[in-house]
C-alpha cells in the first residue's frame, strides 16, 4: 500500500481503474469511438512495453521495432487469407515468427553499438517493409483486409468490441507483469548491467551477448503479440504498420512515459495518442505542439512522465 501513497502510485492506480472501467463509460455515453481509440492505445502500449525492455533496461535503441508489429500482424493476415482462422494456430505462429525474425536481426545488430545498432535495426525494418510491399498475393502496397478475426472455438468472441478490449487490456497487464519479473531477475540484472557497463560485465565473467540476444528476442515476441492484436483490431494489415515512423512513435512513447519503468510505456502511449487525438482536432499541424513538448521532457525530465511523478528520482 505504501507505493500507492506516492503521486506516481496514485496516477498509475487511477489510470488502471480508468482503463478497467472505460467500456462501461463508453457504453453508457454511447461513445463507441472512445473504445476503439483506447483499444489501439492498449495494443500500442504492449508494443511500447516490449521496446522498453531492450531500450529502457537494455540500453539498446532499436529503431525498427515496428517491424515486429508488422510481422505479427501479417502472420494473422496471411493465415486468415489462406483460410486458417483459428487463433490457437494464428497467435502462437505470430509469436514464433516474430521471435525468429528478432533472432536474426539481433544476432547481427547486437554485434554493433550506438549509431550502427540503430542503423542496422532500421535497415532490417525497411527490408521487411519492402518485402510486405512486394507481397502481391497479400495486397502489396494496399494491404490486406482480414474478413474474420481470430477464432477461439467459441471461448472468446473477438468481434465483440468490449470482449476484445478486455482481452487486450489483460494481455497488457500480463506483459507488464512479465517484464517486471524479468528485469528484476538474474537475467534482468545482467541485461541492465550490460547497459550500464558492458565491458565490466564481460570482465566479471558474463557472456553478455547471449543475454542481450535473448532479451531482444523476448521483446520481439511480445511486440509480435501486439501486432497480432492490432491486425484483429483494424481487420486489416498493410506495410504502413511497420513504417519507420511507427518505430519512431514507439520510441517517443517510451521516452515520454519514462524509460526503464514498468508503467512508463503505458503512460507514454496514453499521453501520446490522446494528445494526438485532441490536438489534431484543434489543428492540422498538431505535431508543432507535440515537438516542443517532447523537447521539454527530454531536457527537463529525463525519466519521462513517470520520472516526474516519482519525484525526479532519475533526474
Amino acid at each position: 500500500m505504501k507505493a500507492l501513497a506516492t503521486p506516481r502510485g496514485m496516477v498509475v492506480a487511477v489510470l488502471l481503474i480508468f482503463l478497467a472501467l472505460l467500456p462501461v463509460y463508453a457504453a453508457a455515453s454511447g461513445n463507441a469511438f472512445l473504445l476503439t481509440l483506447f483499444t489501439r492505445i492498449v495494443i500500442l502500449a504492449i508494443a511500447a512495453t516490449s521496446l522498453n525492455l531492450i531500450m529502457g533496461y537494455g540500453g539498446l535503441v532499436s529503431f525498427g521495432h515496428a517491424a515486429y508489429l508488422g510481422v505479427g500482424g501479417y502472420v494473422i493476415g496471411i493465415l486468415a487469407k489462406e483460410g486458417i482462422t483459428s487463433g490457437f494456430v494464428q497467435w502462437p505462429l505470430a509469436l514464433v515468427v516474430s521471435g525468429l525474425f528478432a533472432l536474426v536481426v539481433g544476432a547481427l545488430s547486437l554485434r554493433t553499438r550506438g549509431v550502427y545498432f540503430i542503423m542496422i535495426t532500421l535497415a532490417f525494418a525497411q527490408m521487411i517493409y519492402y518485402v510486405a510491399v512486394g507481397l502481391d498475393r497479400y495486397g502489396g502496397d494496399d494491404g490486406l483486409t482480414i474478413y474474420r478475426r481470430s477464432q477461439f472455438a467459441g471461448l472468446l468472441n473477438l468481434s465483440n468490441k468490449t470482449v476484445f478490449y478486455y482481452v487486450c487490456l489483460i494481455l497488457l497487464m500480463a506483459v507488464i507483469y512479465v517484464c517486471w519479473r524479468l528485469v528484476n531477475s538474474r537475467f534482468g540484472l545482467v541485461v541492465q548491467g550490460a547497459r550500464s557497463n558492458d565491458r565490466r560485465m564481460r570482465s566479471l565473467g558474463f557472456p553478455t551477448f547471449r543475454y542481450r540476444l535473448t532479451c531482444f528476442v523476448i521483446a520481439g515476441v511480445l511486440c509480435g503479440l501486439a501486432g497480432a492484436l492490432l491486425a484483429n483490431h483494424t481487420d486489416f494489415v498493410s506495410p504502413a504498420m511497420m513504417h519507420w515512423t511507427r518505430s519512431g512513435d514507439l520510441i517517443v512513447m517510451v521516452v515520454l512515459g519514462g524509460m526503464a519503468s514498468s508503467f512508463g510505456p503505458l503512460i507514454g502511449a496514453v499521453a501520446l495518442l490522446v494528445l494526438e487525438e485532441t490536438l489534431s482536432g484543434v489543428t492540422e499541424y498538431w505535431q508543432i505542439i507535440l515537438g516542443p513538448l517532447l523537447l521539454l521532457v527530454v531536457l527537463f525530465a529525463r525519466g519521462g512522465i513517470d520520472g516526474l511523478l516519482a519525484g525526479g528520482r532519475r533526474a
Partner: protein
Amino acid sequence: MPDALLQIADLTKRFGGVTASDHITLDIWRGELHAIIGPNGAGKTTLIGQLTGELAPNSGHIRFDGQDITALPVYRRSQLGLARSFQITSLFLDFTALDNVALAVQAHAGHSFRFWHDARREPELREPARAALDRVGLTRRADVRVANLSHGEHRQLEIAMALATRPRMLLLDEPMAGMGPEESARMVAMLRELKQELTILLIEHDMEAVFALADRITVLVYGRVIASGTPDAIRANAEVREAYLGEQQVVAHG
C-alpha cells in the same frame, strides 16, 4: 623453481609502429604478490589488457594454471579465476554498492538464464556480496547508489567485486590511483591481508606501496622487461635506477 600460476611467454603487441609489449616473458608464482612498475607509456596497461583478454597479442602465449588462455574471450578467463580491478573506476553507477558486488557473485554462480525470481532477494547472491563488502570495509555503505560514493570507496568497491568472483588470481591496475595518503595506507593494509590467500599481480605508481608489498618486482620500460627480482635486487639494479628510479628519490631511502 617455484610453481608458476600465470606464465607469460614471448608476448608481443604492436600498435602500428609502436611495440607496446616487446617479447615479454614472465612467470607469476603461486601465492606471490608480483608488482609491475615502469614509467608512463611503458606498456603496463597494454600488458594487463592482454592478460584479461581485451587485447589480442600479435604473438606469444599466456598460460593460466597450465592452460593456454591466449585466445580465450574475456568472460572465460574470469570464469577460470582471473579477476581484475580497473585503473579508471569501472562500476555500475546506477546500482547500489551491494548490487554491484552481487552481480560479481552472480557471474560465478552458474548461468543467468533465470527469468522469474527477484535476484535482489536471493541469499546465495546477497550474503557472499555482503561478506565481500565487509572485507573491504564498506558494510555500512551497502545500500548507497554507487554514483554517490567517494573516489576512495569506489576503489574499495572495485576490490570487493574482484574478490566476490572468488578468483585464484587478482590483477590490480593501479588500485591506489587518485587516493589520499590515508586511503592509500588503508589499501596497503588490505592488500597485505589479501596476499595471504591470493596470487596478486599489482600495477602501481605508488613506489612506497610497491616496495612495502611486493615479493618480486618486474620493471617494464618501452614494452621490455629490463629487470625482475626481489625489491632489494631491484633497488640495487643500476639499469633500473638509470631508467626509472633515479627520478624517484623516495625509493632510495624508502
